[in-house]
């Protein structure tokens, strides 16, 4: 506890860095995965290709991808872009699967009704498919958010900032408290992100609470995402 109080400034700084490194991959991953997921849902050909590519990307071990990034991007090893690009790739790989399931789960009757009353493809996507796919997309986004926050700590192995610094530094100094602070801090960030996402869902997707079927879909999608 004394260590925590004595180092509160550093804990704050590293927490802030951790948050700043976590947000871009989560947001970018979501923004990229939704259209890709829609393409995979819409066309049979693209479905096979896109889902296979995402599966393969997700197969690459995270540390391998982080350390190979400087070579691929031509950046320096300490550039935060290495970590952000790596984690964005993971977020997309994880999220595309869920996004595809989310669009698949939208009832065909509903989309056909929308077409019948004169919705064009563009308006149908924004006003019918996307809102109805929302709850499942949110479930996927929560998984992505949690795993991204936890993966940011790996950056410490290549000397990047964030709470992972406490792991490498604590290990070198043989000081367990410091590591514990890092673990608890990382979990807290993940929990705060999760609560914020759930709240955002309550506000943006009021229909999700009424629609029990959607909730059931979201639950199975989450189980699937966890299994993946």
């Amino acid at each position: 506890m004394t260590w925590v109080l004595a180092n509160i400034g550093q804990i704050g700084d590293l927490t802030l860095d951790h948050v700043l490194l976590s947000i871009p991959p989560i947001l970018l991953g979501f923004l990229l995965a939704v259209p890709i997921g829609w393409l995979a849902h819409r066309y049979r050909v693209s479905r096979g290709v896109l889902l296979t590519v995402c599966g393969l990307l997700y197969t690459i071990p995270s540390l391998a991808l982080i350390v190979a990034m400087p070579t691929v991007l031509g950046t320096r090893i300490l550039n935060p872009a290495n970590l952000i690009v790596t984690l964005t790739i993971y977020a997309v790989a994880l999220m595309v699967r869920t996004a595809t399931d989310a669009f698949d789960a939208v009832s065909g009757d509903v989309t056909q009704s929308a077409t019948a009353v004169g919705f064009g493809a563009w308006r149908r996507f924004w006003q019918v498919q996307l809102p109805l796919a929302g709850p499942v997309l949110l479930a996927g986004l929560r998984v992505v958010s949690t795993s991204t926050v936890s993966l940011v700590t790996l950056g410490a192995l290549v000397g990047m900032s964030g709470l992972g610094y406490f792991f490498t530094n604590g290990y070198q100094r043989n000081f367990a408290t410091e590591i514990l602070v890092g673990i608890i801090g990382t979990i807290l960030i993940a929990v705060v992100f999760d609560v914020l996402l759930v709240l955002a869902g309550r506000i943006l997707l009021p229909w999700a609470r009424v629609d029990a079927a959607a909730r059931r879909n979201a639950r199975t999608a989450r189980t699937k995402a966890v299994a993946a």
Partner: protein
Amino acid sequence: MNAFAEAFVWIGDPAHWSGPDGIPTRLAEHLGYTGLTVLIAVLIAVTLGLYIGHTGRFRGVSIGATSALRALPTLGLLTFLAIAFGFGIRLALIPTIIVLVVLAIPPLLAGAYSGIESVDPRTVDAARSMGMTEWQILWKVEIPLALPLIIGGVRSAVLQVVATATVAAYISLGGLGRYIIDALPVRDYTKVLVGALLVTLLALVLEGILISIQRLTVPAGVRAIRTTPSLRRQRAYGRNASAASRAS
């Protein structure tokens, strides 16, 4: 892209194919940790998962625990266990195996119980009405039908473990991660890339093997339903009819 060429030259060099830091040794170490961990984790998680799936008990708890574990940073757990219990550098294997088992459990558990849950309840009821005991239902009906999903869980677990075993090199363990962790401080980026490439290759090969096994474990009856149009129609009709009768 020149760096990749250099990495391949490094891999091709016969000098790197022998000795304690040679590719075969590191690969064997990596596979050894992975095999041992997955074996222990399968014994724990699949047993639990089958129980949860068959009885439907503790389902909520296990889903919660599964997502909570996802938030746990592996590097933190690894360094903490290595230090807190005084395993030190010589016994790095113990904290590593503990961490890897902990990480392998959620996907295995999820695969096992969602596999059992995915079995059509009418099939289970049919088996029960024919006089099968619960034990027979589990072994002769539920497990064979759930096997592809159970293997799917093994697949995710293996990937997770291969990736994390790389990180474990940080607490002075062997395996392919050694190349990355040893080469980073001395800025030997060719060797770092070699480590990254070899680990990726290993993960892809294991993934390929497990996908094939997963395909092979689909029971013949299920495969027939999926591929024969008339059977598929019949099954869809049965599903709709039972849904309709439930609704009325």
